[in-house]
């Protein structure tokens, strides 16, 4: 098999985390995709063992700035289970509200970035402009746009007043219209459909076998959502559906997220309108008894899992964290088989990776041909050009 190595230059103005791919190609067709995620390994699991639960909460919040609440919630509810305490109802509902707001902001963020990858910059700008409405709501509730620090062991640190409720509902109603608009766009926009339909195919059986989670799994018609299957917080009381698509491809993943966006706005409205009265914190003991628990949660990208062990101290003995993007990686590798290089940005973006494609992409094509260099920007531009020519678009 001919293998040519093309190192890709790292810098890209549109952020996200650095990661290194190695793509083995046979001419134009991709044979294999390797992953190097050591770029942002920091050593968090180890550090958590030497910090008490409260400090550890601040640490895990910063595993990812996009789904920070998902991390603190999974950790907090796990420790609470080990302690044998239950946050009051209002706290559970507030946690759920922020969780759904986070899903909204995350899906809008992804929508913008994915649009950018296929050259659809207007959509990127719209999505991120609308995302500001969510950031404002989160700031109203928590005091911060990002890394909201809502959770404490035993409940939430912030409450919402009646005047805040009115402001939040106003913002949510705007978002409701915008979300509906986006579901329309993804179904009708030629640029999007061309790049997503039939691309990155993943049959249902394979999604299950490969351990896919979240919108990647649901976009391949796998009906798995931790909120319904392993209920936590207020999800057993707030109405919602598990959204799946039978498209089994990138479009399926796009469709699931767009519909989830609409639904999460509805759920947030429902929560604010029906918020139970009462306290927002339960008294937590300083230590957790000897025990073990697996805490799961449906983060915007899929199933997030925390394995926790405690030993009668104020710290975890062990915390093992499995993030959804790791679970989805084998699915990307499979979905990209046989595709052309031009499809890489889209198939990778379709799993909404919480590690960035910004960094290196090394193409390995073995016939000892000319070595070149491709930046992520170049790759994205190449992908756009490839499809414009293919479809005879201007």
């Amino acid at each position, binding site marked *: 098999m001919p293998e040519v190595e093309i190192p890709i230059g790292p810098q890209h103005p549109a952020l996200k985390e650095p990661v290194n791919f190695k793509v083995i190609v046979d001419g134009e067709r991709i044979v294999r995709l390797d992953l190097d995620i*050591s770029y942002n390994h920091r050593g968090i699991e180890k550090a958590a063992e030497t910090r008490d639960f409260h400090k550890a909460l601040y640490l895990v919040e910063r595993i990812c700035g996009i789904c920070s609440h998902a991390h603190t919630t999974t950790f907090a509810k796990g420790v609470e289970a080990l302690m044998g305490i239950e946050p009051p109802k209002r706290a559970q509902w507030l946690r759920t509200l922020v969780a759904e707001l986070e899903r909204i902001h995350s899906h809008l963020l992804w929508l913008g970035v994915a649009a950018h990858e296929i050259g659809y910059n207007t959509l990127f700008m719209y999505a991120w402009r609308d995302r500001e409405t969510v950031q404002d709501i989160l700031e109203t509730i928590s005091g911060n746009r990002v890394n909201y620090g809502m959770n404490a062991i035993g409940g939430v640190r912030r409450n919402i007043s009646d005047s805040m409720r009115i402001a939040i509902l106003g913002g949510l109603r705007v978002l409701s219209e915008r979300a509906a608009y986006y579901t329309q766009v993804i179904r009708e926009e030629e640029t999007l459909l061309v790049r997503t339909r039939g691309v990155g195919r993943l049959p249902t059986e394979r999604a299950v076998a490969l351990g896919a989670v979240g919108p990647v799994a649901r976009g391949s018609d796998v009906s798995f959502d*931790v909120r*319904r299957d392993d209920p936590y917080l207020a999800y057993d009381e707030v109405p919602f559906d598990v959204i799946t698509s039978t498209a089994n491809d990138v479009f399926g993943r796009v469709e699931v997220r767009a519909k989830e966006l609409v639904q999460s706005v509805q759920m947030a409205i429902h929560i604010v309108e029906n918020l139970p009265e009462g306290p927002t914190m339960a008294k937590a003991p300083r230590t957790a008894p000897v025990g073990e628990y697996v805490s799961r949660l449906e983060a915007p990208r899929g199933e997030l899992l925390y*394995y926790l062990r405690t030993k009668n101290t104020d710290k975890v003995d062990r915390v093992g964290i499995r993030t959804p993007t790791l679970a989805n990686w084998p699915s990307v590798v499979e979905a990209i088989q046989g595709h052309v290089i031009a499809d890489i940005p889209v198939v990778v973006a379709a799993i909404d990776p919480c590690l960035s494609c910004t960094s290196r992409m090394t193409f390995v094509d073995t016939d000892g041909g000319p070595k070149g260099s491709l930046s992520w920007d170049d790759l994205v531009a190449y992908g756009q050009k490839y499809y414009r020519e293919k479809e005879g678009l201007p």
Partner: protein
Amino acid sequence: MTDEDVLAKIKASVLGLTEEPKLARPRRITARTTPDKVLTVLSGLKDAGCRHLSAISSVDLGDAFEVIYHVSVGGVLVSLRTSLPKATPLVPTATGVFPVAVLYEREAHDLMGIEFEGHPDPRPLLLYEGWPEGQYPLRKDWKPPTGGEKHA
């Protein structure tokens, strides 16, 4: 299936368990086996409906290691654990039964030094290329190399 259903199914059909599986908490079943029977049990769990491998956790218990496979069917999670001796933490790779294990096992090897026999691609996953070999940071007795900041 409810967690009671899953537990009953496991008790009836899964071979190789070394203890009675138990419902530890709602939707949380624990089970135990020995390293040589891990693949038998994992296949059995998969056939019993647990087709999703959620995660593989590695733990340093001080006098032994423990590797825990978390498999699930919907909301019910089964944590299958096996104990490995400190000197030779060796267990067969689960990638033949659950392909997604390929990354989880690389992580457990990288950070805890568990050896997964037969792993198709045993490269480091998280530690950078300059990381010294044989240094497994998640082990309880691991100390950061001398010099530099106090380990937080």
